[in-house]
Structures are given as structure tokens and as C-alpha cells.
């Protein structure tokens, strides 16, 4: 069920009035049922997997609290990791590794035909397994007391606004909100409405508007002209940002309408001036999850320069693999790891000026955007050959072809709209607090967004890109 679908509108028209008319306990039961319907609408068969993941971590966390023996506690937390990562390995990566093994054996001249599972990837599996695993690890670390109420815990895992594409919400943030009475204030409704409208605009107008031309460029059997390749990568950079941050904004907006705050997941990432800053602004909930549950347990930056580089590299390579079962994602992760390592090495040797001038900042931002785009090319390409083809065309044949005009127009028009709004609102949840808004211009902009949403959304909707992860 897509947020920008009629089915979801129907769903919301039933769920929200009921929610507002109930007290906390009733609200939680309603939200749990609604969340299972939301998930089951995609494929009800995978609900069992989802419920199993919930029950396993619920039971393990309760057991962890009762157990004092460190060895048993380690076994319990390991059981959670094995169960969750096992699910991921089976449903997301099994066929990928089997296929890769087959390829390697064939390359060695061996005739290999290994059994595959051929199962559809359960939607959102990467998000909810990380969320449940994080909860059990927090209980193991004694940062959190386990939840006794199964409904509250199941709702924490299944909460529909962020179920299938995040943000990956920490138990210590979301659970207390679910366990306590919630008050929906006027400010919540206002912020919620704004976030939903802006998120829908980013998704339906900008991301879906770019999707057609991006798919056309990347779908061609032979690489198009160099200018088209370059513009397609720019277009994809804006498509993926608006698609994913649009989803996050809608999720946060929906939660606000219920009096619940969900973590901010994006903070204008294309204004970053370094890879480190980029990961503080892009998919923040994943970056923080990887930092707390992978990078730091690996040793973080405590074991000297080389171990730090190793930890950075491993974290990002695994983060890349988390995105999808394909070598291009692994390569993207490796690229991000290499960038962070290089940035760290350079920064340590030549300490950057604390307050560079405006021109330098602009150049750094433009440079970082292009480095990010190189990463997006790796991320979006169907295989390594396409990455090489695009790069070769961009370097050796930077002339327009049939698709360059529509692509350039889409990038200028849609990315222009994005920049204009983000610059004006500074990405705030409550842009009406800005003085320029209060002149009346702000509400005119809201009306403009609404009309834009009605008129400019392409008729063909595309699933959110991060649903596949």
C-alpha cells in the first residue's frame, strides 16, 4: 500500500477517525491491526515471518532481563542476531549468493547448477529486522528494560508509518510514546499536515516526475550520449532523495497526526561538504544504527588508524549490502567506505580550515555533490558494465541526444522546485515560524504545493525505491 495511493487514502479515512476517538489501549490495538492490514495488503503470506520476528525478540528480551549469567545473556542476544540475520540471509541474500557462487564456478570452467529459493523479497524486511534486533541488543546492553505488553511491543515493530521503509526507529524513542497516553495538539496537526503535503509533493511530483526519464536512460540497451548519461545521474540523485525523504516526511507527518514523533531521517544532504557530513545528513537513522550496532562494536576509532579504517570500510560495505542483494550495492558500500577512509586520512594530514570562505564552501558542496552522484551511478546501474559505459560516455562523448532535452528540463524544473522550497523552509517541520512565511506568502506556497500536487503528479505512480530494501 503506497502512501500516494487511493487505497491508502481509504485506509487512512477509516483508521484516523477511529484512532482519535479511542484511548491509548484501544489506539494501540487499532494501530496494530491497521499495521498488519497495511503490511498484509502487499502480501499476507509474509505476515507470519513478520509476526515470528516480533515474537522471537519479544521473548528473548524478557528472558534477557531475567538472566544474570553473562554467558547465557550473550547466547540470547546471539540468538536474536542469528534469527534476524538468518531471515535476511534466507529471504534476501540466499539466491544472490547462490547465483554468485554459480557464476564463480562457471568462470572456473565447472558446470554448476545450484538450487535456488526463488522467493519474492518480503517488503521492508531490512528495516524491521534491524529495528527488532536493535531492541534486543539495547536490552542486552541494559540501556532499555524489555516491554511486557505484547501489544505495545508488536506495535513498536509494526507501526505502519515507518514499517516498510523506515526511519529505523530506536526502541528508547518510540516505545515510551506508545506506552503513554498521547495528546494530539493543534501544532501536531499543523506539522503533520505540512510534512504529508511536502512529502507527497516530493514523492509524487518530483521523484515520480523524474522516474520516467531516469528509467528510460538507464533502461536503454546501449549507453546513451554522454550528456544524457550525466543528466540521468543528476536526475537519479534528485529522484532517490525526493523518493526516500518524501516517504520519511509522510511517515513523520502521519505519526504527528497521532501525536507521535518519529526521528528526522534527512537534513538537506546535498549541502554536505564532506562524506562524513553526508552520512550525518542522509538516511540518518541507518547511519546511527550502523554506528551504534556495528561500527562501535567492531572497535570504532579506538584501536588506532588502521583499525579505524578497517571498521569504517567494513561498516559501509555491509551497509551497502544491506541496501540490496547485488554486487552494485556492495560496490556502492565499498565506494562509500573508501570515501570516508580517504576523507579521514586527508583531514588528519591537512586539517581543514574551521571557517572557510563562502566561495570555498560552495566549491566543496558542488564537489561533494558530484562525488555523491558517482556513488548514485554505481547504486542505480544494472551492472558494472553499465557503470563503465556511462563513465566512458561522460568523459569522451559529452554531446546531447534525443533524451538530453527532456532530462535537462526535468532536472532544471523539478530540482529547481525542490531547491526553492528547501532553501525557503530550511527543511523545517514548522516553516511558518519563519518571518518570510508570516507575510502570507507561506500559505500561498502551501496552496501552490497543493495545486502542483494535483496538476503535476504523473499519472503513473512508482513504488518507493527503498521498499525493495
Amino acid at each position, binding site marked *: 500500500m503506497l502512501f500516494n495511493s487511493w487505497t491508502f487514502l481509504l485506509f487512512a479515512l477509516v483508521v484516523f477517525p477511529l484512532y482519535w476517538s479511542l484511548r491509548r489501549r484501544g489506539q494501540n490495538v487499532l494501530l496494530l491491526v491497521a499495521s498488519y492490514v497495511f503490511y498484509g495488503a502487499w502480501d499476507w503470506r509474509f505476515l507470519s515471518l513478520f509476526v515470528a520476528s516480533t515474537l522471537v525478540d519479544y521473548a528473548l528480551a524478557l528472558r534477557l532481563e531475567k538472566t544474570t549469567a553473562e554467558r547465557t545473556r550473550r547466547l540470547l542476544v546471539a540468538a536474536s542476531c542469528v534469527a534476524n540475520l538468518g531471515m535476511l540471509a534466507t529471504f534476501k541474500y540466499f539466491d544472490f549468493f547462490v547465483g554468485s557462487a554459480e557464476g564463480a564456478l562457471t568462470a572456473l570452467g565447472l558446470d554448476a547448477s545450484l538450487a535456488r529459493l526463488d522467493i519474492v523479497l518480503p517488503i521492508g524486511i531490512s528495516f524491521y529486522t534491524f529495528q527488532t534486533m536493535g531492541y534486543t541488543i539495547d536490552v542486552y546492553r541494559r540501556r532499555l528494560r524489555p516491554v511486557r505488553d505484547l501489544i505495545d511491543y508488536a506495535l513498536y515493530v509494526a507501526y505502519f508509518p515507518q514499517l516498510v521503509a523506515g526511519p529505523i526507529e530506536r526502541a528508547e524513542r518510540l516505545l515510551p510514546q506508545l506506552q503513554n497516553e498521547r495528546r494530539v495538539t493543534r501544532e501536531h496537526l499543523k506539522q503533520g499536515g505540512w510534512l504529508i503535503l511536502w512529502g507527497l509533493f516530493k514523492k509524487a511530483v518530483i521523484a515520480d516526475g523524474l522516474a520516467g526519464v531516469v528509467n528510460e536512460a538507464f533502461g536503454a540497451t546501449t549507453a546513451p550520449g554522454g550528456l544524457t548519461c550525466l543528466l540521468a545521474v543528476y536526475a537519479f540523485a534528485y529522484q532517490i532523495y525526493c523518493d526516500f525523504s518524501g516517504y520519511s516526511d509522510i511517515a513523520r507527518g502521519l505519526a504527528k497526526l497521532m501525536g507521535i514523533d518519529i526521528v528526522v531521517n534527512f537534513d538537506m544532504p546535498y549541502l554536505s561538504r564532506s562524506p562524513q557530513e553526508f552520512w550525518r545528513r542522509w538516511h540518518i537513522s541507518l547511519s546511527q544504527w550502523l554506528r551504534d550496532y556495528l561500527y562501535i562494536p567492531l572497535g570504532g576509532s579506538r584501536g588506532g588508524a588502521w583499525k579505524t579504517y578497517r571498521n569504517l570500510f567494513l561498516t559501509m560495505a555491509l551497509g551497502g549490502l544491506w541496501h540490496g542483494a547485488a554486487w552494485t550495492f556492495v560496490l556502492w558500500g565499498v565506494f562509500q567506505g573508501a570515501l570516508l577512509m580517504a576523507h579521514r586520512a586527508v583531514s588528519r594530514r591537512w586539517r581543514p580550515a574551521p571557517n572557510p570562505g563562502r566561495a570555498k564552501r560552495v566549491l566543496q558542496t558542488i564537489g561533494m555533490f558530484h562525488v555523491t552522484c558517482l556513488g548514485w551511478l554505481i547504486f542505480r546501474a544494472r551492472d558494472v558494465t553499465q557503470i563503465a559505459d556511462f563513465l566512458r560516455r561522460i568523459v569522451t562523448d559529452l554531446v546531447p541526444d534525443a533524451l538530453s532535452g*527532456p532530462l535537462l528540463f526535468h532536472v532544471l524544473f523539478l530540482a529547481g522546485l525542490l531547491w526553492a522550497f528547501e532553501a525557503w523552509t530550511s527543511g523545517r517541520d514548522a516553516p511558518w515560524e519563519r518571518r518570510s512565511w508570516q507575510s502570507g506568502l507561506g500559505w500561498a506556497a502551501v496552496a501552490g504545493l497543493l495545486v502542483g500536487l494535483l496538476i503535476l503528479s504523473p499519472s503513473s505512480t512508482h513504488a518507493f525505491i527503498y521498499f525493495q530494501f
Partner: protein
Amino acid sequence: MLALIAGTLVASEVGARGWGVESRAWYPAVVGRASDRGPDVLVVGTSQSAAAIDEDLLARHWSAPDSAAARVENLGQGFSTTMAHLCAMRWAIGQRPDLLRGTTVLLEAAGGTPPPDGADGRWYYPGMSHLLVPYVDAGLLERYWGTDHTLEEKLELTVRVATTDCALARLSDRVRDGIVTNGSRVVEKVLAPLAPVTDEDAETDLRAKGGVRTDRAGIDRVRAHTLAGGTDAAPSVRDVDWDATLVAELVEFVESHGGNVVFVEVPMSRAAQRTSYASGRPDPARFKAWAERRRLTILRTHLRFDESDFPDLVHLSASRGADFTLALADAWRER
């Protein structure tokens, strides 16, 4: 916030009505022109028919040389579906019950077979709902809810039908297309001097009918799209129960209103065939047998076409379309 949303919607609706977006094209235009009697020949199909069949030429050569010119309407339209034609035809008959009396409906059978879709198939293409929605009534909507389409598709069509009279809804497709098409063309003009000159630049011999793009960039995009969608593997042959298709329903509808259906084998390039038949090709022999059983004529010409006759690899060029139209008229008279 709610007041703002409501106010914006009302203001936009009033503004859109002021723009006068009523459309009198396609079937409404045919109904409008049929003052005393309906057309003699109605061409029903996609933009391939629009490009291949020159209605003026066909009008002059359809009947015997000493007869008056026939009245020919070419309703070939890009991204139209059989269901869209069926719905629009039902609507047209509602306006003019005698519209099809004595009319020969030339139904496109590109490459030898018409579209094999049933009611569970595609009713409209994304962005082209205006070809279907104005003609869908409550009965058809109920039928749509009984098909295998998803809940989302059913809700979407229902909302579109419910807002048929809403000027804002009608305006949206046009404004979006206008912004995207005109904006892209402006940028294309700016980029044109930078583009390398190729031999293909001369090949713009296309009829601007039925949504066919005749500008250089448009032709290139259709070519690229067609080449990208094809497969070199030989297409598998699909068995189609033609009695269960919308084509059969269209035939029955035309015949029940006094018209007769003739299939026209509209030429297709090899590249377009590779794209169209990527998921299997309906068995032409089986279609032929079905048409014979229903005593329906399939008109084919003996002309041969190669890839150079299709400037964008999908639509026949204007000059070869004229040849095809004349050969079609000959085939009709000699049948």
C-alpha cells in the same frame, strides 16, 4: 489548514472552468460531424493506423472511381486501448443511435492480429485516462470492479470517473503535458546546436495524426524506446480465445448497430514486432480461423515494407502510408 485546502480547490476549479478545457476531439468530433448520416468508413486503432491510413486518400479511392467520395474518419489514436474504443463507441451510439448504420469499421490488426486483451487487460495507459474516462458509465464501472484489476486500479478509475465533470481534473493532464512537452522542446532547441548531425535527420516524413510526434527529438525518443524494449529471441506463440476478447465484443457491438467490421493488417516494423511480442505473439493462424468462422474479412495488401519505411520504427512514413492506403482501397474493392 483544512479551510486553505478547501479554498484552494474551489478557486482552482473555478479557474480551470474559466480556461474552457472542454474537448471536442476523437469520438465527440465524429458525432459532431455526423449531422445527417454517419461515416462510411471508421478506422479504429492506435497511432499506427493514424500514421498508415490517410483518410482523405482513402475517401477518394474507397468506392468505385465513378462514385462519390466516401466519408472516412480515422480514429487511430496513440495509447488508445480496445476498451477505450468500445466505451467511446458506446457513448457515441448513445448520442447518435444510427451512427454505425451501414458503416464499415476498419479495425487495426497490426502485424496480423488485433490486441488479444480481455476485460482483465489494460483499459487505459497511465497519463491517457482522458481517452477512456469521459465514456465510462456506472455499468462499465461496475464491470471494472468485477475484473482482476487491483483495488488501487479500481479506486483510481472510480475517482477519475467521479471527477469527470471536474474541470481541474480534466485540466491536470493537459497542463502537465503542456509544461513537460513545451519545456522539453525549449531545452531541446537550446541543445540542438551541440548535437552531432546524423544521416537520420532527413527522415521526418511522418503524419502528425493520432498523437504521433513528428519532431526530430520525438522521433528519436520513440526509436530509442522501441529499440530498448525489444528482444532478439523468437517470440513464443500465445493461444488466444478470441471469443473472450474485447475485440469480439467490439465486433458484436458494431454489428448489433448495423455496421460491419473488417480487420486491416497494418504494417509493423521488425523492431516494433520485437517490442510488441516480447511476452509472446498471438497465433495469427488461430486468429484467421476465428475471423473466418465469424465471417469477418481481413484486408491485407501485397506491399512490402522495410525498416526505413518507419522513421521512428513504429509508424509508417507519410509517403509509404499513402501507398498503403491506396493498396488498401484496392484490396477492398477487389475482395
